[in-house]
């Protein structure tokens, strides 16, 4: 049996700005249906990795292929879910229209959406449980509702690879679980590969197959149980770091970028407005 084409493939990939190496020698194949979380401190290059995949940031070294294609040509195979951000209340779009823009928003000139496309939009909204507010203005949706619509938007094109950039940030616990669950269901049912950049591993800890941890210009790739250990992270940070498992949650203590010394992945000083997700079981 021949191996399927990886949804995302990085070969000796590196990115540096001047002397500053964000990451280098990155070899990664994300298989169809695989769920990979990208972790690391602020400024480690997690977002730059997404930019590279989206073709917005050329690599300094190595190769990157999306479903076997270079980023410029493979881009239409990628769905993208950004951070939740409040939208102007007077935005003249309904939830349905935001999803539609995911399908044809990049096309110039007037066109009429086909019945098949309209059905695809309705199906995508149905799949994330957003049918009830499909005709509500996007500016009036709650954060959780908006992220569901964003997932519908990203999935309406039936992507091979789903890129998520902190999609759970600023959501309440219930919405975090719901949104993570939708992404998980999608990759199981449609074999969509998921690359999920996050500060906080706990809401998706039980869903991810592998973790890519980036810090100090280095990285480790492997199952969460192998990467999120005191030994591995101490090596990566070049300082003693303790990884504790507390009631099913992973808590990382002593990373140098977090001066308080004791913090977990869901309490990062750089995001003061964020609600700590306490009591996650």
């Amino acid at each position: 049996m021949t191996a399927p084409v990886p949804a995302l493939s990085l070969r000796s990939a590196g990115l540096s700005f001047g002397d500053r190496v964000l990451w280098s020698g990155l070899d990664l194949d994300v298989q169809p249906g695989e769920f990979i979380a990208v972790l690391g401190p602020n400024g480690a290059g997690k977002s730059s990795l997404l930019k590279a995949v989206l073709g917005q940031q050329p690599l300094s070294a190595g190769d990157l292929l999306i479903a076997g294609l270079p980023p410029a040509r493979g881009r239409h195979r990628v769905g993208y879910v950004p951070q939740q951000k409040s939208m102007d209340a007077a935005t003249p779009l309904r939830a349905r229209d935001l999803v539609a823009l995911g399908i044809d928003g990049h096309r110039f000139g007037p066109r009429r959406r086909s019945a098949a496309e309209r059905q695809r939009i309705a199906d995508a909204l149905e799949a994330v449980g957003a049918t009830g507010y499909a005709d509500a203005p996007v500016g009036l949706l709650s954060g959780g509702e908006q992220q569901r619509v964003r997932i519908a938007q990203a999935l309406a094109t039936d992507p091979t690879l789903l890129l998520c950039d902190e999609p759970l940030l600023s959501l309440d616990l219930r919405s975090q679980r719901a949104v993570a669950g939708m992404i998980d269901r999608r990759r199981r049912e449609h074999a969509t590969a998921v690359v999920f950049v996050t500060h906080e591993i706990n809401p998706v800890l039980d869903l991810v197959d592998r973790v890519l941890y980036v810090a100090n210009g280095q990285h480790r790739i492997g199952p969460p149980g192998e990467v999120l250990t005191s030994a591995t992270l101490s090596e990566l940070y070049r300082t003693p770091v303790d990884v504790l498992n507390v009631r099913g949650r992973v808590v990382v203590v002593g990373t140098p970028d977090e001066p308080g010394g004791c913090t977990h992945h869901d309490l990062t000083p750089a995001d003061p407005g964020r609600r700590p997700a306490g009591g996650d079981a």
Partner: protein
Amino acid sequence: MDRLFDFRDYGELLGLVHNSLIAAALLGVVGGLIGVFVQVRDMQFAVHGISELSFAGAAAALLLGGSVALGSVLGSVLAAGLIGWLGVRARDRNSVIGVLMPFGLGLGVLFLSLYEGRAANKFGLLTGQIVAVDTVRLGWLVGVSVVVLTGLALLWRPLMFISVDPEVAAARGLPAGLLSIAFTLLLGLAVSLAVQVVGALLVLSLLVTPAAAAFRVTASPVLAPLLSTVFAVVSAVGGILLALGGTIPISPFVTTISFTIYLVCRAVSVYRRHSGWGTRTPEEQPAAVAVP
């Protein structure tokens, strides 16, 4: 009161302003549609800034004996180009506009004070004029309108995407910078049209108020531009029809109609907010829940 309303020779007057009515209707369509993007891109201040430079261009043309239409288009496009080039980010943009605007207005005042022709021509550039549209100028207005409307038709969807959802639009490969410059140039052309009909001071009443009113009552991407256009056409054409009856310039009539429409839409939106949108319940639980 006679200066405000006197409809005795209305039929004859109507024949005289035939061209102006066509121009106003065109301006309504252009202003109502481009206003949608002025609103979603938060460029109200840019409209005002461009209109002052358009005024300066028109005043220069008046002084030099050139075409006022051409002058106002050149002034607008120059201003739009500068704003688009120097001010891609919103903060930079506002300071660039704040710097350009008084300079443009100052230049315009200078040109007007040097001009020794009819006083009505001077005043008209600031507050609009009814019978100023001759056939040559109407040709200009139609030409510029066609360019703006064609440009909008081509750019509409990508421009909406990059304006309301910039991250995802960029992820789909849309060029934000180029679209921004292209839109600002179209905006410049639209403003130059408006300056020639309603005058530099009141351009906002046709490029901002109608869309702002429409956005109050609908979030439909089809209905919003449609309503905005209807509001702008009603304001512009209605303003001329009312202004005919007196010696007052058209702008107070245009602004009053447009403002009244806005007030009505606000009232509707208050009612709308109470009655709610959609059928969702906030506590709704999705079918799939993460296994904890």
